[in-house]
């Protein structure tokens, strides 16, 4: 690993100020992606600004049907939160499937969303729940936030402070994990609310996380696994790698979506 400098931010404003100080400064939260990347010398930030101790970025609140999760909240905290279990059990389930217990103790919601790994779990939930990504300067709809593989609408020094969404009527998540890394080879999050059904798919698309409009239309009239039997996914839009071909993933999207609908509560 190349040398770096470390700064611990005490507030969001402090973090943004520190971000402006180094040559190539990066924010680090749980570090579950950034630190392995630095070890492999694929990233070599001159400075790190640690966001784990910023109080205003932590915690879970549910009020009036709106769920707000601080960006520095860990996956373990989301998975075990009684508030999340009551408002959106599918999201607790999603958080409980990320990596392993050790990773869930460090990794954070904000880090996962900001990194937009094409096989990360949270982006699919953000899309399906129609979440707002709240930053230190604006609110970005999930539909406008995820812009491609590891790409987001965030500006260079912008920080995700929280994510917010309206508790859905029903939601479900089903993932086919890579057995070694437990990243999604395909993960599908379905959410039903008064405004309709939204389906977010991660791990499968060659442009990263995406909404599946064919499935959304089919489920709008009939929210049941059988409604998806005639819906297909074009392999031309799917990732293909040593873990699975595009055709395999296209099939997995349908299988995971049916399971997610069946599991929805």
């Amino acid at each position: 690993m190349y040398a770096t400098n470390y700064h611990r931010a005490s507030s969001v404003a402090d973090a943004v100020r520190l971000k402006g100080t180094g040559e190539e400064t990066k924010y680090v939260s749980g570090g579950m992606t950034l630190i392995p990347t630095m070890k492999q010398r694929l990233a070599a930030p001159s400075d790190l600004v640690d966001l784990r101790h910023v109080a205003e970025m932590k915690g879970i609140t549910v009020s009036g049907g709106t769920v707000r999760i601080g960006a520095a909240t860990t996956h373990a905290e989301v998975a075990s939160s009684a508030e999340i279990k009551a408002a959106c059990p599918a999201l607790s389930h999603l958080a409980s499937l990320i990596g392993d217990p050790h990773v869930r103790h460090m990794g954070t919601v904000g880090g996962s969303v900001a990194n937009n790994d094409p096989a990360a779990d949270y982006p699919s939930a953000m899309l399906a729940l129609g979440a707002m990504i709240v930053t230190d300067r604006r609110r970005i709809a999930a539909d406008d936030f995820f812009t491609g593989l590891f790409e987001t609408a965030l500006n260079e020094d912008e920080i995700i402070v929280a994510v917010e969404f309206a508790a859905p009527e029903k939601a479900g998540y089903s993932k086919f994990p890579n057995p070694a890394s437990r990243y999604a080879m395909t993960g599908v999050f379905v959410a039903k609310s008064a405004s309709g059904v939204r389906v977010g798919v991660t791990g499968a698309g060659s442009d990263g996380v995406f909404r599946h409009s064919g499935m959304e239309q089919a489920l709008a009239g009939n929210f049941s696994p059988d409604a998806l039997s005639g819906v297909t996914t074009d392999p031309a839009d799917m990732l293909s790698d040593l873990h699975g071909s595009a055709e395999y993933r296209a099939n997995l999207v349908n299988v995971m979506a049916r399971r997610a609908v069946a599991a929805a509560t």
Partner: protein
Amino acid sequence: MSKMHIKLTVNGKPVELLAEPRELLIHVLREELSITGPHIGCETTHCGACTIDMDGRSIKSCTVFAAQANGANVTTIEGLGTPDGLHVLQTMFKEHHGLQCGFCTPGMITRAYRLLQENPDPTEEEVRFGMSGNLCRCTGYQNIVKAILAAAAELNAVKEAAQ
């Protein structure tokens, strides 16, 4: 890169040291503090041999900078038992043959210790799920799971007797 002044509490003892910002917690524990219970297996966040307890949570110390741990309370296998006074988990790993080569064992037991704090009476499935960040290439896990379930039963029996 100037070194940073790091303060930790390790196995109940306050320690202070200087570390480069890029130094990983596992390296500081092993090389600066001579705490060699936590092992370096893969150093890629997969195997869990470097598992320690930091502020009451299991973490992989190969994927945390010592600087991130500044101010933290750390427990390693050395803080759980001694050769003359084994922790009940260590006794059960011995009795149930929960180890063969022993390389993963400190991480296994440190994780199992936290798992039983989180869930004192786990099912077999919960043990397997809770231990899924720790890999063993010898045992096939059967005896590790047995040892942890036996330790849970023993700890619960002791607790009940005390009441």
